[in-house]
């Protein structure tokens, strides 16, 4: 990293591209008990994600894909089964697996810079100058250097998600878990972010698990697209997307893949999904 080399050695170390993790999800089940009875959100789901792979999970709302993401993040415990990162079981949240949520979840009492600095302050063995350099680097990476003093409410939805992305990248996690991060954005902003996220993924090498209900989005970003079906939540089909990168969401080749995936989704009987496309 040319930017890293100019800085203090420890900040440079912090900014080094580290090896992404390998994820192994084995027989994970999760049941929720609610007022209307219990729902089997995940039924013996198994999934392997290779180091540096970009995997997209698609499915209708309520099919358990977000639950799986939360379990990988360590925010929820499975009723059965295990999640391993690089062979070690996940027992709780940890900053080698960071989450980007649908709502930006940025802290309104901190400005943009303070938000990106937040996870870095939780990392030991760094000087404050290192932390600031690292935060600056990631704000530049997402194109928001000019807004480091801005308050969160002053940003547009797309800018907020960029800050979220910078905050998630800042502690240099090996895995990035993204839970419909672009669902609330307008189409133009989203298209811009598809480009950015592919570039950043190439530059920073992360294992990414990306949850979405948008099939085109999944086909545009993923190396693999896994199709979920609800009640009970299961992985029903898997598609490899071998298009060259960077991919354009509007390309015809991509549409062909998306059509194929949509067909599979529809075959599991989710009429509301047709409307999304």
């Amino acid at each position, binding site marked *: 990293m040319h930017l890293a080399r100019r800085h203090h050695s420890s900040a440079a170390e912090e900014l080094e591209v580290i090896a992404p993790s390998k994820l192994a999800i084995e027989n994970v089940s999760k049941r929720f008990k609610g007022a209307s009875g219990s729902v089997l959100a995940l039924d013996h789901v198994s999934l392997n994600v290779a180091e540096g792979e970009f995997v997209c999970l698609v499915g209708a709302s309520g099919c358990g894909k977000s639950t799986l993401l939360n379990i990988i*993040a*360590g*925010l929820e415990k499975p009723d059965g089964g295990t999640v391993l990162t690089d062979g070690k079981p996940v027992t709780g*949240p*940890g*900053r080698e*697996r*960071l*989450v980007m*949520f649908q*709502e930006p*979840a940025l*802290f*309104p*009492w*901190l*400005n943009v810079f303070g938000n990106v600095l*937040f*996870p870095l302050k*939780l*990392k030991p063995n760094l000087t404050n100058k290192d932390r600031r350099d690292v935060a600056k680097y990631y704000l530049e990476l997402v194109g928001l250097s000019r807004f480091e003093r801005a*308050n*969160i*409410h*002053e940003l547009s939805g797309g800018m907020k998600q960029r800050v979220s992305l910078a*905050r998630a990248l800042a*502690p240099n996690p090996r895995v990035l878990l993204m839970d419909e991060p672009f669902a609330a954005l307008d189409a133009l902003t989203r298209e811009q972010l598809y480009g950015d996220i592919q570039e950043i993924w190439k530059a920073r090498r992360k294992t990414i698990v990306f949850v979405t209900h948008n099939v085109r989005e999944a086909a545009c970003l993923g190396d693999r697209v896994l199709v979920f079906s609800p009640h009970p939540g299961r992985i029903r089909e898997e598609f490899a997307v071998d298009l060259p990168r960077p991919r354009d969401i509007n390309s015809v080749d991509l549409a062909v893949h998306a059509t194929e995936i949509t067909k599979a989704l529809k075959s599991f009987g989710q009429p509301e999904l047709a409307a999304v496309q």
Partner: protein
Amino acid sequence: MKRFLLAALFFAVLLLIWEALYRAKIWSPVLLPSPQQVALYLEGAVVDGTLAKATVITMRRLLIGYLIGLVVGLPLGLLTARWKLFGDTVGTMALGLQTLPSVCWVPLALLWFGQTEAAMLFVVVMGTLWSVVIATETGVRNVPPIYRRAALTMGSKCLHMWFKVILPASLPFIVSGMKQGWAFAWRSLMAAEIFVTILTGFGLGQLLHYGRELSAMEQVIGIMIVIVVIGLLADKIFFSPIERFLHRRWGTSQA
């Protein structure tokens, strides 16, 4: 500047109306002194030092009591929000006692502590404490769960979570509770000082009381003006800047 001039004009008109009423002699001058008489009293009280002394005594009682209320109330509010057992017990008690006008503590304070500074402090603390407890609890309960989850994934735990996430996230609620606590403390202290003479110090409330005893209306009105000004200053110097900061950060409107 224009705003300042308009405000100055407003208060000048108020003074003129007062003076006009005085000159119309509708009420006896004993009941309604002229602005000039009140100004003369205030000048005398400033020169002989009674006003400064009384203000210092009152503010000392208020500030010490208020600080104790904050220092006890904040952690109590956090505990109340965090543990059901505290919520059911201390939380319910705080809610009940908060509805009790704090001047109602005066008789009890007098019997317990006698005519001492402790009685005064007790009343102020009771005025502050419950508002702060309730506001802190409400604030913590209103922190969106997503903040906690996001912080958890970034490695925030226990004390860090409390001090760097939950407390700042509940700040808007806590500050409005602090403001309410301040208002309650100020009111109850004035009531207590008017009620009770404490030989260790004559506060503003006592000056007000003796103004009435001596039928010195210019003293009564003069001290009332001082009390209003202190209230205004506390708001403008202490609370307004904090509120402005919160509005700017959170993007809530100030209008």
